[in-house]
């Protein structure tokens, strides 16, 4: 069963507008959430994270929102730029585990049109 789901495989947005990427999770043990960006032929690159003690974290054009009761998080990119075109992965981990295993969603391909 998929513990982290990204239900939109792709998203197309006009340059300068807002991009909203969504992610749902089922495992109540998850308390740390991350977004990664992946370009072709490269490994995923960390974007932004949020701990379950917060409901919002902001870093420049990127903001992540966490709704624990709905087990839902979203990544907002404002304003979107053509260079943001990539595959975005949502990931989750449980901090009480001894390790740092990440559970990833299936990814959303974002295309920002000039």
């Amino acid at each position: 069963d998929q513990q982290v789901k990204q239900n939109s495989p792709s998203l197309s947005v006009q340059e300068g507008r807002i991009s909203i990427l969504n992610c749902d999770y089922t495992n109540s043990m998850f308390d740390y959430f991350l977004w990664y960006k992946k370009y072709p032929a490269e490994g995923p690159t960390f974007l932004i994270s949020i701990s379950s003690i917060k409901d919002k974290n902001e870093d420049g054009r990127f903001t992540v929102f966490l709704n624990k009761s709905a087990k839902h998080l979203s990544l907002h990119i404002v304003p979107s730029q053509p260079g943001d075109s990539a595959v975005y992965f949502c990931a989750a981990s449980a901090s009480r585990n001894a390790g740092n295993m990440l559970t990833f969603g299936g990814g959303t391909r974002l295309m920002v049109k000039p």
Partner: protein
Amino acid sequence: DAGVTQSPTHLIKTRGQHVTLRCSPISGHKSVSWYQQVLGQGPQFIFQYYEKEERGRGNFPDRFSARQFPNYSSELNVNALLLGDSALYLCASTRGAGAYNEQFFGPGTRLTVL
């Protein structure tokens, strides 16, 4: 500073063969994790090693094994290859072992099993 490096970049094997993939972490990082990314899906956790000891193991068969060396580099071994093992194998390094350590990914090794 060099990032995470992986070798080889690409590999083609036939069913039943054995493969060894290699990863060198960022200097100063003591933990290495391995992930498998099948086309169209998110990365799936295979192993984590910290200070040469296994810290976590994902839901993979015993055909998959790994080890970490005194210099913190790591090998992933897969025996009796199946067609379904065709994937991008990603290595990630972190300074420490816990959940809040940022994971830096290498570019991956693309394995094709014929």
